[in-house]
Structure formats: C-alpha cells, structure tokens
C-alpha cells in the first residue's frame, strides 16, 4: 500500500504543482505509515526521477507508450487507472490544476471511484486508510466543505498554492520501475494536436501591480487612465466580471473565481464593489487600495487602504503625482 503521486509535466518539463502534491502526499503517507511513490507518464518524464526522489518518492513508476509523447486527458487518465489497478495504492494525490483534476477525473470515471477535488486538508479517517476526512474548497475558495469519502483507493487532488513544496533533507535514492500499460488506439483522439506559444511578458497572474477596474469605470475608454497608472508602475490592468460582461475588456483581464487569481504586491480596486467571486481572485494580493465612491462597499471595508471618491478624478491624480515626483 502506497500513496501514489500523479506527476504533472508538459513534455518532460515538471509542473511546480507536482511538488505541492508531493508535500500533501507526505503528510498522508506519514499518517498511514505508507511509502510515497510517483507515477510519471511518458518516457520524456524519466529524467524527473531525481527531483521526485528529493521530494520524498521512494519509487517512481514509469509508463512508456508512443501515444504518451504529448498530453492527452483520456490516455493519461487510462494510464492512471491502470496504475491504480496494478499497484492498488491507498490513495492517489494530484495537484488541483486544470490537468491534474482532469486526469484524476478521467481515472475516477474509468475506475468508478469517488474523486475529491481541491482538498486543503486530508486525514485518514479512523475506519482505516480506505476512508478519509477532508476539507475541500468550494465556490472557488470562498467556502470550505468538510467531507468524508470511502473507497479502496482514494483519489484526491489538493488545492493549488496550498501546500508548500519542500525538498527532504536526506532523501532516499528513488528506484525506478517500468509500469506496463496497454492503450487502445482510440484514446489518441484527445491527444494535443498543436500549440501556439504565448509571447513572454508580464501576465495578470504574476504582475507586481494590478490596476483593476469595475462597473464604476463606466466604459471601455474609461480604462485609459487605469492603463496609464499600470504602465507607470510596471503593472497590468485587471477588471471585474461586470466589465467583461459589458464587453469593455477582454476576459483575459478578469480577476476572480472564473477569471484569474492574482497575487501582486499592490492591487488597486477602482469602482469594484468586492463581490465574493471577485474577492476570492484578489485576496492573495499583499496590499489592496480600494478607490470607490461608496465607503460601505465590501471592497472598501475589506481592503487595507481606501480612497473615497470618483475614480475618474482620483486615478489621474495619482498618475500625475507619480510623474511629478519622478520629474
């Protein structure tokens, strides 16, 4: 009985999220006295053995197949399902990224087992290792759910950015063993067929400063002063769903539950009321400065700092002051 970690990677490049899953698996493995093993899908991931060992995997199972050279949700899910049948682990742990949850769900469907998504805490229940008590996130993180689940193998994903990846001080060597898999040719139908690379640059998710605008901005053109402030600070513009719904900005700029989660040093929230679905995408910001005409707005009462006033006057005044000091 092991705790098996699903290794997420893209054509051999490890996703950092995998190491979060390793960290979560370590707690569970210790609680049930089981070793941690990892599953790498595709020969291209063989070289990941050392980093996986450094993070606690005593064994890495390698699945090789010509169909696995690139990612495919069905092929990967089928490999994971076969790994569960062959190895009978107590639990599978994946990170709750797009791919992590997708592969886990594909495996869960094939095995007809429950899958508990985006856990922030996992404990084996007193009934033994085949049952767990978890806390998981719902509503994109605005609500927590305590839940139980029971199955011969528990399929769990852990919420992204919850567990901290930490290498072991004295890791074991990490054995590698081949895992035989048989894949039906039909599974190739959902393998990635092509890609367009994104041009590098500051993204909303990683920007040090985000200047966000909401319904209070009033129009697409109304974003020009916000854009200017963002550029002065080396940041980017973000927005609320009210803005994208009105067609004022592209959804790529939307912050929140169904948009992007941001974590800048400073988030300016201009003319944004602070609905929970927006807040959940902004709450990881180090500092929030709300600019709003309504002193009772949720964004104002939750932010660290606030300016009460019309954003159309306040935002240009801030830019002007920055330029004045730099001159």
């Amino acid at each position: 009985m092991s705790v098996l970690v699903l290794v997420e990677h893209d054509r051999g490049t490890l996703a950092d999220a995998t190491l979060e899953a390793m960290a979560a698996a370590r707690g569970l493995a210790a609680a049930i006295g089981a070793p941690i093993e990892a599953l790498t899908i595709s020969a291209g991931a063989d070289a990941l053995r050392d980093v996986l060992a450094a993070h606690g995997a005593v064994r890495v199972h390698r699945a090789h197949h010509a169909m696995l050279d690139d990612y495919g949700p069905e092929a990967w899910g089928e490999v994971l399902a076969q790994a569960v049948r062959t190895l009978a682990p107590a639990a599978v742990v994946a990170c709750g990224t797009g791919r992590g949850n997708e592969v886990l769900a594909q495996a869960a469907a094939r095995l007809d087992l429950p899958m508990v998504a985006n856990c922030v805490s996992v404990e084996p229940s007193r009934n033994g290792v085949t049952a767990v008590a978890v806390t998981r996130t719902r509503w994109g993180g605005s609500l927590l759910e305590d839940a139980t689940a029971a199955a011969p193998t528990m399929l769990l994903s852990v919420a992204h950015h919850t567990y901290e990846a930490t290498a072991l001080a004295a890791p074991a060597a990490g054995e590698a063993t081949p895992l035989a898999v048989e894949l039906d040719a039909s599974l190739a139908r959902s393998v990635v067929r092509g890609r367009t690379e994104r041009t590098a640059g500051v993204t909303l998710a990683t920007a040090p400063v985000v200047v966000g605008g909401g319904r209070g901005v009033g129009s697409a053109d109304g974003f020009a002063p916000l854009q200017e402030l963002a550029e002065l600070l080396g940041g980017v513009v973000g927005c609320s769903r009210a803005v994208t719904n009105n067609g004022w900005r592209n959804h790529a700029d939307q912050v929140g539950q169904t948009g992007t989660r941001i974590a800048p040093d400073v988030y300016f929230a201009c003319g944004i009321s602070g609905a929970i679905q927006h807040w959940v995408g902004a709450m990881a910001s180090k500092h929030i400065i709300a600019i709003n005409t309504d002193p009772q707005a949720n964004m104002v009462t939750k932010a660290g700092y606030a300016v009460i006033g019309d954003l159309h006057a306040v935002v240009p005044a801030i830019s002007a002051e920055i330029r004045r000091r730099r001159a």
Partner: protein
Amino acid sequence: MRICVCVKRVPAPGARINVTDDGLAVDTAHLGFTTSPHEECAVEAAVRLVEAHGGSATVLTLGPAEAEEQLRYAASVGMTDGVLLSVPGGDWDPQRTARAITAAIRSIEARDGAFDLVLFGNESADGCNYQVGIRVAHALGRPMVNGAKGLEVRDGVAHVQREADGGRETYELPLPAAVGIREGINLPRYPTMKGRLASKKAAVVVVAAEGDEGAQRLVRLRRPEERSSTTVLLGQGPDAAPKVVDLLEELGVLR
C-alpha cells in the same frame, strides 16, 4: 447538428456566502439564482453552433423544480428545449449526478438520435468538483477535453483550444464528443424581448432523476477564516493622491 448543454442552478451570493445553521447548505434566503459563467458560455457556444450549422440545442439540468428558471433563461437566449432531472432534497454528490445525467442523455438519444456534442462548464460554480462532465463523457464513450477557450466544428471534428502555461493547446475531437467550456470563450448575449416570450413556450420536460449514490459525503460547509483588517483611509477624492504615492514609495513599488 444536435447539442446538449448541462447547467446547474446555483445561488448568486453578493459580498459573502452564508451557511444554514445545520451547515449543510448555502443560506439562499434573499438570494437570486443563476448558473456558472462557464455554463452561460457553454449555452452561448451551443446557440452559435446551431446558428451556423442548423439543428437543435437542448439544455439539461439536475436540480430542484425551481431550476426550470435556469432552463427558461437558456431558452430565452436561443436554446431549443429543456430537460429537468428533478431531485427532491439537496445537492447530489458528483458520481450520482453524473450517473443520472448519463442515464437521461442515453434515453434522449435512444429516442431522438445521438447528440453530436455534449457541453459542460469547466466546473460547477458551487461544487467545483471538476468531474461531472468527464464522468458523463466517459460513460457515453465520447472524447472529452475540459477548459475549452475555443470551439469550432468542421467536417465532423470539434476543434478545441485551451490555455496552458506556455500558450494555447489545440485538440481535434471526432464527433460525437464532449467539451467542458470556460468563461471567456465568447461573450454571452442577453435575452431579447422576443427571446423571453419564446422561452415561455419552449418545451421543458421534467423527469425524476435516477442514480445510485456515490461515496463522497458532505459533513459541513463553513466560511474560511477572514483576515481581519481595518481599512486605513488615505483620503477623499484627488487630494488623496500624495498620500497614495507616499504609500507606494513605502511599499517599494515606486521604482
């Protein structure tokens, strides 16, 4: 082209989500209801495909009788008809939900022919289980990709795009297929007056949902601890600008 879109009725909370005293549900007193933005976009995608290729688009939900409201809304923006799989009590677990939806789609398809596409949201707004669509697609034997930010149908193939760390990935799923849609794939239209009137007459079939229970049990919902904060007021109107910039200097973001 025949399309089915699965949507879930959820409350639309404002500043915070309150939980009922027993901890088993979101307190929906005084709340309106909606569906996930991802599912609104799935509906819009289906309506556009039918506009382009002809055919029909069915919206399906599993939920309380009141979920007819969400089906009628979908009809008001162009969906052809609706199916309500009614469940008496609270929420069903994801395995059970998927079993019931699978059975319903099978019985519709046995009568009217296969759906070329079954569309889902990337995740439900409230449950965020990331699995119901994938389970249904697998049970129906259809290829499935979640998280789609692009969807076109050409020559019996669904061309799907989705975002990945380094850019966009493309997939080519032979029909019949299933796709999980993400918000941003399109900008959903608002209902017109004509659409609203038509939606009142759209056929909505109500059948009792059927599916064996899964193995995940809700114990309790609760709000995460909030970081308690006192707001520092920097001032009123444009006169506050110097104080804001002082703060930016102090925080080291003004380089």
